[in-house]
């Protein structure tokens, strides 16, 4: 680009302007340096930056990296929060032969479309399990689920996933390089949430995602049955909205089963228990939608020659649930024990 000579100021003024420009840049660098120092100072007290779809995914990848180094796992659970909260991998391991490694690789809000990617790209290569238990509920097969789609997008778009599958773009590579150098860049997803930073610094951040070493969520175990308006709104407007079993999720489930079998592992589908009295009316067509789901699942199991297990004595009482979808401690113990018996020839 050519510099003008149309109205060149006098050399002295020109020099002065240049010096002022340099001084401004120096001040900018100093301010940036202060921000960088501040970010480094608070970094140990903040939540780690989210590089996967969400923090839960991130923590589970880290946990599975650790398990992979130790030889993987024998039994793996897949599903959504209903599996995360509803099965106790520690109890399952306790009931099994000593040395059996059990891991709960379920992700909140997932459906088979995401599970297929998650299992193929992350879980199966790391854990090389002998048995994979896939827990499902009617929300899993809804092709129109909004929260399921959002979770899928978060995972697919995450920067670490791009690196994991070798498809990182140039901007993502630049981003990672800058993250390695600068705390401001590294922590930016946290800094964008001023109240979260404030809570982190005060040490009052609620740990909603506390996981056991085997990947399970224990937050709901101590709860008594309760249907909150937030749960109802989430389920009706986001999870079960426009309920339709159109084949997209079923096709993904079929591919997932094939992938699991391709590494020589056994597959078990579980129709997870729900608090039917409250959960059924949350479907747009009530009982008809739930019946359609169960029929589709049975047909899928027959067509794909997969064992489908249904817990005994359904429906289970409210005392065993924390909310219409998630079991509490009593329900978790009952389901895990039954699951162990089922998978071990009981």
């Amino acid at each position, binding site marked *: *680009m050519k510099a003008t000579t149309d109205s060149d100021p006098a050399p002295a003024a020109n020099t002065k302007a240049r010096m002022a420009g340099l001084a401004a840049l120096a001040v900018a660098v100093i301010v940036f340096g202060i921000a960088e120092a501040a970010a480094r100072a608070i970094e140990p007290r903040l939540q780690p930056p989210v590089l996967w779809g969400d923090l839960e995914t991130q923590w589970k990848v880290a946990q599975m990296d650790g398990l992979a180094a130790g030889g993987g796992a024998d039994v793996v659970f897949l599903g959504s929060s209903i599996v995360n909260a509803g099965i106790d991998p520690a109890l399952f391991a306790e009931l099994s032969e000593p040395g059996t490694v059990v891991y709960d690789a379920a992700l909140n809000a997932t459906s088979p479309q995401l599970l297929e990617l998650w299992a193929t790209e992350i879980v199966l290569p790391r854990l090389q399990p002998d048995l994979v238990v896939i827990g499902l509920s009617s929300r899993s097969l809804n092709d129109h689920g909004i929260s399921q789609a959002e979770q899928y997008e978060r995972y697919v778009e995450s920067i670490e996933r791009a690196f994991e599958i070798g498809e990182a773009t140039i901007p993502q590579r630049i981003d990672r390089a800058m993250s390695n150098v600068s705390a401001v860049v590294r922590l930016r997803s946290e800094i*964008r949430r001023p109240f979260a930073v404030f809570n982190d610094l005060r040490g009052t951040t609620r740990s909603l995602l506390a996981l056991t070493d085997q990947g399970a969520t224990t937050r709901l175990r101590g709860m008594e049955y309760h249907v909150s308006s937030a749960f109802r*709104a989430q389920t009706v407007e986001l999870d079960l909205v426009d309920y339709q079993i159109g084949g997209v999720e079923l096709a993904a489930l079929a591919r997932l089963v094939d992938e699991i079998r391709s590494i020589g592992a056994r597959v078990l589908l579980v129709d997870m228990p729900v608090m039917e009295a409250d959960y059924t009316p949350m479907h747009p067509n009530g009982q008809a939608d739930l019946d359609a789901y169960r029929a589709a699942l049975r047909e899928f199991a027959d067509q794909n020659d997969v064992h489908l297990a249904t817990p005994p004595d359904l429906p289970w009482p409210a005392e065993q649930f924390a909310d219409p979808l998630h079991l509490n401690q009593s329900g978790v113990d009952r389901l895990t024990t039954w699951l162990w018996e089922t998978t071990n020839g009981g």
Partner: protein
Amino acid sequence: MLFNSFDFAIFLPVVLVLYWTLPRRFQNPLLLVASYVFYGAWDWRFLGLLWLSTLTDYLVGRALGTAAETGRRRRLLGLSLFVNLGILASFKYFNFFVESATSLLEQFGLSADGPTLRIILPVGISFYTFQTLAYTIDVYRGKTEVEHNPLTFALYVAFFPQLVAGPIERAQRLIPQLAEPRSRIGFDQVRSGLFLIALGLFKKVAIADALAPYVDEAFSGATTSGWITLLVGVYAFGLQIYGDFSGYTDVARGVARLLGIELMINFNQPYLSRNITNFWRTWHISLSTWLRDYLYIPLGGNRKGNVYRNLMITMLLGGLWHGAAWTFVVWGGLHGLYLSVHRRMRHKSPVGPVDPFRWRDVIPTLVTFNLVSLGWVFFRAETFSQAFEVLRGIATLRAGPVNWNALGLLVGMGGLGLLIDLVQRNQADHTIVLSWPAAARGVAYAVLALGLIIFAGGDAIPFIYFQF
């Protein structure tokens, strides 16, 4: 291609280097090719419409230059209107009109299955059709010269910095700049051009995109969110659309300046307006002046008796220009109503420069801002029921959890946006920061850089006005 994308970060330097190193006679051909590449990056098929519009108005303009007979001139103008408005009607409004007619028939118990088109809306169609129409109307009125050079005219229609979201430039202003070779660019132009680009990207990324998720959260949860979440969402949308659109304009002006071309200011601190008339003199100036010159005045303008009708028609059509939905029409109608009411009481609230630090102006400014925010509810909502749910939730103080991050960001970014506007208040070029003392300038540079670093990342979010 988006201004806030990696592709554009490669595209622009390549264009600039070629532009300033090639002989001057290649400047316009290069810019035209670059503009078509920029536009074709969305979908090369859209180029056909752009070429159709360009060819029509170029030929009509030349024919108008030789036509003396009034009837023939009218027919030529009619041809341009038919082609340009026909493009708009087909690609933007056809389905809207068919669906509206079908819905109306159903109200009367009649069943009709009107044909609908499976088409996607070409990016920026409303902007370039209005720009090229303005040229033809001005040639017809004798207000601008006929452009005989097809290359210059094609570049006037397609100039990439302002092609997809304005400013809608007038031929008298842009064509003479494009017709003359740009021989030099000064250090101050480079500096201020880069500053405008950085400022625009900051407004887009650190204000608009940062607030976008909270706006989406509020509107998608219109039936269940608490009133604070909804109110934060409404105010956040006001900031989002301002940051998004004025940010786009700043980048467009900055890029054009680096090419030696000056584009008009499109926003002049609209939220500091103390009345709605002032708001429309400072918001999307290129559209509001277009509507004034080519719609409001031909309708009769301020002539006694028709002024309220003319205001309403202009604003209703202005609303419809934004999108093929009744919510936009209501938004326009609401502003038409505001303007009419303000016109009635104008002696109490005179139009003039704004000084929000005068205590007597603070309340009118806040009232204006809230009236505009009320309008944004209809602009942002996907349906009337969503808009009314948002308003109902706020009016009934519906209980619900508060997203403190959203509130914190709204206050922080609102404060920053207000600061930017106060600093630029009554400044002709929006680059006043460059004349500040070195220390203050350095702090401003650092804030811009930090904002971009913290809020950038992930996929580039398209500008809101691209959909119009």
